[in-house]
């Protein structure tokens, strides 16, 4: 049944319908779990994320806010290399595109990179970020107390 749902969502292009021309802010506001489900099951690739970024930039105000909120929720599920890729896409945006919602997304990316950096090496596995990559973000390691605080913030 679980796989049936995944296949059904992909086959019927539900994500495309939600983000397409007939998209509506209230639908987007409620559909974050759906996008997270697809991403967790590897049915949303980084190319799809790139398309979602582009759609977000084409939209205005509330619409854009909820699409960026979806991206922010997806960023919580990403591994360091995916986070790096998403951050790179944001870096490529023009300065005029950066607003409060984009900054919120950057904050989520930063928090998750920090959490990945502090994971024990065996737990983070092959997707672990090396020191050079972390330097490129400019995020420091911080004290264990500040890490705990960040983790607590993430939990709530």
């Amino acid at each position, binding site marked *: *049944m679980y796989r049936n749902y995944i296949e059904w*969502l992909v086959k019927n292009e*539900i994500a495309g319908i939600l983000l397409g021309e007939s998209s509506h802010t209230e639908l987007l506001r409620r*559909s974050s779990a*759906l996008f997270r489900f697809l991403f967790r099951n590897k049915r949303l690739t980084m190319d799809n994320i790139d398309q979602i970024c582009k759609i977000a930039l084409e939209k205005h105000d509330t619409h854009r806010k909820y699409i960026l909120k979806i991206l922010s929720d997806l960023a919580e599920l990403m591994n360091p290399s995916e986070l790096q890729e998403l951050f790179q896409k944001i870096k490529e945006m023009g300065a005029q595109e950066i607003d409060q919602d984009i900054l919120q997304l950057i904050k989520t990316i930063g928090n998750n990179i920090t959490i990945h950096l502090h994971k024990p090496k065996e737990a983070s596995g092959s997707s672990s970020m090396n020191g050079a990559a972390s330097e490129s973000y400019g995020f420091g390691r911080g004290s264990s107390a500040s890490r705990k605080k960040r983790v607590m913030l993430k939990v709530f």
Partner: protein
Amino acid sequence: MYKEISDISSCLKSQYMDKRMYAVTTLVEKIAEAERNQEDFEKLKNLNPGADIKPPHWFTTE
């Protein structure tokens, strides 16, 4: 399940907002339920590693 979920698909494409809202809400609920069932099944498998545990019929049938 499939009859119901195909109804959801047509609701999602409806011109009426209330139908579309119903579709998204139902989909999200169904996904949450499917994830819970999947987690329970994985836990059951992990409790007895190596055992040939088949998913219950409600898990695989439509």
